[in-house]
């Protein structure tokens, strides 16, 4: 909501430094998004007429504008805006002008063409916040005159306020003034329009019927005669311009002015064009059509509200836009003026569906004041009276359903318990009274009747918020509750930190690709394509929810490689989203870890897994060769912890690397943390350290290539039993004298007992058992 200080001051004698007032507005919940002093620093800006428009020979974004500054001569100006036409009046900053922002206008060449001044956008001269086009001036201004004088611009303060959805009242100058007056403790007064009424009573000239009382809470109509359509008075046009609305003609401008001032939108019909002079308010029939004021034929559906005439022809879309058939025009003499209260939900739905959101529909959506119509009608007539319009007596006033306004019991104790304040009942009443929340003492408490312009305020807590707001949030003291529980992270959260710490410790960088994928990304990564998709994505590239971290990490490697950063080690901890096997309320969402080591082979990934298992103390794992789609078929293993599959380790399939444009081998680890962290891990029982000597022996076996090393290890561990305290594969050798299709695996075994020194015989016995366990089961033989 945009307001001018001078306009606020018509309702209340609010005063103060402009920045102090800005702070006060913010403290009231009307955050000041921008503030400017307007009507100053305009010396040198004159009214000019556009004589000719032509392209700049060397620049597409600039055009050459010939303007007349009053002497009939053409003056060339280069301009980056294209919104004006020949004949338009525009503000020209002449040579030597110092603009409000300090810039001095000088004659200069722009791409080889002289520019003798600058045409100004509204924001450049402090009128509104539009900076996309040149300000188009009222055609009646005198060319060559100083702008400030021609437009009767006075020094003023402009505020652009952010209005929250619960404050429909603040969508009007009056509503803002009411709040500010309460804050400053000065009286607030609504205007009392001075209108002469004459002619035939409106109730004899038109009729209103509300067929859907939910859609329409109130429909008022009056008649204005003697309409002449022309330009608005300069002061009124200036205010509209300052608030970002373009003056159109006297009737439209007054309608906008009243809407800005009092928050009540209106619609005008040429009364003679309304069949039967009847207004029937109902829902549309599916498929009904209307040509709206913008000349577009609209097809309506049953949820849209409409105004129809006596023949039941739709002549307006309720609260959204009127129809062309009853539009006022130069020959209009009598106008039916509609001011209605529409159901916010209905208007919101229609406006959104039709793409016709306007200043008016925005006010209806938030909930207008159903009781302001009487005043707004008279204000409308008063303003239009300046152009000769005469208000006919009488008002047709039909009502449907509007929000109930029962008194709300507000407990003094509750107010103070919620706010941490110590306000007395009477102080609370005083605060509420200042914004027209009518308080009535009820014992220690207060019964409050909420004003009609605050439909959002319907319960005790709503009123408590108003008390806090007018009391001032800053006036509430600050206390800090002492937590009555113990702060801590869960085991899961601690584990997640351990995972990250382990990855960081191995030199891997954490990445965070967004979890949206393009259609086909999963398939390119060799993954199931049926996943969860976004039904209303902005772009197709963000329409699929990832079912795996793989596409994101591969894309990250490809991106970096394309910037000549190869050999990266990266990891991600994040959610993936899967369709569940069994029906459940939400998708199967789980946390995964994925690691990609560019330029490394599967061995490096196994090393990362093994370190992770160590960090989490999840040592009871096995690796079993596997070939899931998308991973390297001969270099991948399934990781099982305590017999449960938790992920895969190995390499990315070369075909997938090509598909993602990753130019180097990629070692890969993916772990379902949801599963892994639910399996036994973490602290283990302490095993005491033996104080007795240990014996080390080395054993090398020649084993077929298709026998995994882990199987040899398993045999050794089983045979070694408790005495085998350490086992490590320290050498793998292929080639002569080892046979074709076989390799030598050399292990170091350390034997030790907890309670004695092992004898040579014992060591030799267990050594023999180990050899036999391997040779006897795995077509392996001990190498001499």
């Amino acid at each position, binding site marked *: 909501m945009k307001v001018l200080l001078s306009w606020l001051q018509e309702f209340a004698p609010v005063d103060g430094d402009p920045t102090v007032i800005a702070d006060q507005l913010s403290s009231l919940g009307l955050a000041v998004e921008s503030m400017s002093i307007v009507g100053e620093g305009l010396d040198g800006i004159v009214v000019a007429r556009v004589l000719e428009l032509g392209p700049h020979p060397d620049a597409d974004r600039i055009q050459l504008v010939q303007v007349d500054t009053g002497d009939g001569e053409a003056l060339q100006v280069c301009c980056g805006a294209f919104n004006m036409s020949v004949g338009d009046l525009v503000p020209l900053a002449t040579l030597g002008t110092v603009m409000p922002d300090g810039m001095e206008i000088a004659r200069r060449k722009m791409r080889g063409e002289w520019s003798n001044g600058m045409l100004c956008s509204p924001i450049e001269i402090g009128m509104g916040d539009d900076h996309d086009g040149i300000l188009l001036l009222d055609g009646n201004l005198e060319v060559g005159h100083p702008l400030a004088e021609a437009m009767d611009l006075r020094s003023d303060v402009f505020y652009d306020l952010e209005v929250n959805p619960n404050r429909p009242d603040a969508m009007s100058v009056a509503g803002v003034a009411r709040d500010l007056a309460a804050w400053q403790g000065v009286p607030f007064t609504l205007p009392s329009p001075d209108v002469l009424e004459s002619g035939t009573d409106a109730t004899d000239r038109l009729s209103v019927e509300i067929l859907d009382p939910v859609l329409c809470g109130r429909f008022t109509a009056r008649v204005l005669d003697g309409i002449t359509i022309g330009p608005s008075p300069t002061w009124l046009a200036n205010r509209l311009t300052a608030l970002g609305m373009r003056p159109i003609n006297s009737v439209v401008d007054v309608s906008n002015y009243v809407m800005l001032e009092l928050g009540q939108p209106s619609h005008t019909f040429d009364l003679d064009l309304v069949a039967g002079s009847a207004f029937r308010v109902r829902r549309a029939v599916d498929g009904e059509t209307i040509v709206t004021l913008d000349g577009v034929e609209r097809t309506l559906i049953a949820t849209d509200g409409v105004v129809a005439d006596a023949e039941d022809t739709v002549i307006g879309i309720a609260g959204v836009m009127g129809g062309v058939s009853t539009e006022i025009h130069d020959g209009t003499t009598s106008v039916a003026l509609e001011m209605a209260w529409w159901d916010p939900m209905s208007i919101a739905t229609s406006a959104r569906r039709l793409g016709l959101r306007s200043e008016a529909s925005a006010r209806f959506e938030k909930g207008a004041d159903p009781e302001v119509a009487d005043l707004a009608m008279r204000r409308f007539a008063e303003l239009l009276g300046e152009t000769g319009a005469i208000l006919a007596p009488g008002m047709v006033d039909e009502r449907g359903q509007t929000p109930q306004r029962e008194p709300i019991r507000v407990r003094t104790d509750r107010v103070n318990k919620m706010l941490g304040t110590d306000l007395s009942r009477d102080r609370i009443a005083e605060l509420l009274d200042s914004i027209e929340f009518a308080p009535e003492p009820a014992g220690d408490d207060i019964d409050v009747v909420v004003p009609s312009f605050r439909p959002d305020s319907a319960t005790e807590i709503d009123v408590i918020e108003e008390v806090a707001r007018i009391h001032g949030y800053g006036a509430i003291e600050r206390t800090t509750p002492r937590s009555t529980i113990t702060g801590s992270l869960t085991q899961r959260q601690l584990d997640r930190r351990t995972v990250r710490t382990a990855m960081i410790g191995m030199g891997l960088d954490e990445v965070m690709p967004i979890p949206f994928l393009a259609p086909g990304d999963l398939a390119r990564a060799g993954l199931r394509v049926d996943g*969860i998709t976004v039904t209303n994505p902005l772009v197709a590239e963000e329409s699929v929810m990832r079912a795996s971290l793989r596409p994101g990490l591969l894309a990250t490697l490809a991106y970096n490689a394309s910037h000549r950063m190869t050999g990266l080690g990266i990891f991600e901890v994040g*959610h993936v989203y899967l369709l569940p096997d069994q029906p459940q309320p939400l998708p199967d969402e789980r946390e995964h870890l994925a690691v990609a080591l560019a330029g490394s082979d599967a061995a490096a990934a196994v090393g990362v897994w093994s370190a992770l298992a160590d960090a989490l103390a999840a040592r009871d794992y096995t690796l079993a060769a596997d070939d899931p789609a998308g991973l390297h078929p001969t270099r991948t293993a399934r990781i099982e912890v305590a017999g449960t599959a938790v992920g895969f380790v190995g390499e990315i399939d070369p075909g997938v690397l090509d598909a993602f444009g990753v130019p180097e081998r990629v070692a890969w680890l993916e772990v379902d943390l949801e599963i892994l962290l639910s399996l036994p891990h973490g602290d283990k029982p302490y095993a005491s350290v033996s104080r007795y000597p240990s014996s080390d022996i080395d054993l090398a076996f020649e084993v077929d290539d298709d026998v995994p090393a882990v199987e040899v290890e398993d045999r050794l561990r089983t045979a070694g039993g408790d005495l085998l305290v350490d086992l490590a594969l320290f050498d793998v050798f292929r080639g002569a004298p080892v046979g074709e299709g076989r390799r030598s695996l050399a292990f170091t075994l350390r034997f030790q007992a907890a309670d004695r020194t092992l004898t040579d015989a014992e060591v030799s016995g267990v050594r023999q058992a180990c050899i036999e366990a391997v040779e006897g089961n795995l077509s392996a033989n001990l190498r001499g």
Partner: protein
Amino acid sequence: MEVPYSAGVHHLAVADGSDCSLMELDLDKHLADAATSIEGAANLDALSEVDTVLLGKKSLITAAKRTLGDLEPDQRREVGGHLNEARATIEGLVASRRTELEAATRAVRLEVERMDLTEVDRGRRLGHRHVVTQTWDRLEDLFVGMGYTVAEGPEIEDEWHNFGALNFPLGHPARDMYDTLYVDYGEPQSTLLRTHTSPVQIRVMEAGEPPFYSIMPGRVFRSDTADATHMPVFHQIEALVVDRDITFADLAGTLETFTTAYFGAGFTSRLRPSYFPFTEPSAEFDIQRPDGSWLELAGCGMVHPEVLRAGGLDPEEWSGFAFGFGLDRLALMRHGIDDLRELFRNDHRFLSQF
């Protein structure tokens, strides 16, 4: 038997080790010879041999000492004294030669081992926690210190938790404040990408009994085109406190405490009226930088009675406050990053800076 002796020249009768026959020993000459051979030992092994010859079991001095018993007590004392002195002298010479040789050996070794460390300064590095994770962890630690737990919830949420339970009735215009992305799961528009971390408030209330002192960091989604300040995916952190007699003053004080703890002593905060369906009174939380400028940081307020009811609590018995803010922005502020997109571009040159 006379043993010739005169001052200045030491004459000794020394027993030959094998046959115990005595011969004359010129002690001065022996010392001089000893000094020469010690000096001549070119390395520690050679010195060891010299040491054995001069002081070992078969050395002259050892042999001479062995014959002392044959002398008269007075003579024995005197000659013994001389022998001891001579032995000490030789020991001293050996020790000092050993020190010299050891130093030389060490010097040679050190020279051989000389390294240019700038030549090898490459290789091992730690990885880098993502700057969002760092901020996330800092906030968790801070609030855990203030007595809070950390709660989490799903990123794909149902309509009830994201909106309904938070006092956004169906069709409520306030839902328009959130550009919601829906997914094809269940009934149309029943399942969505959570637009804020607030649904976790409901999940916390559903899962346990008050009092609650929890923060809820997490990933959230909006239908937004990426630019310097917007991303379709970003992170928030939410706080929920529900206990007996929690007041708006508690909210203000907690946020002030947080401001000082996270940003530093030079920062202060203020609350301004605002609107959120799930809190009332609602407020915007601004922080003031030491240079006096204000920054809008968070939305907050007292938990709305309807939200407490949706969480199964009686609003007459329990009250609480909640606040939530963008986590990524704190990360940007901390490091002076001017474009939100950098956080998600995963450029190694960016990631490795933190």
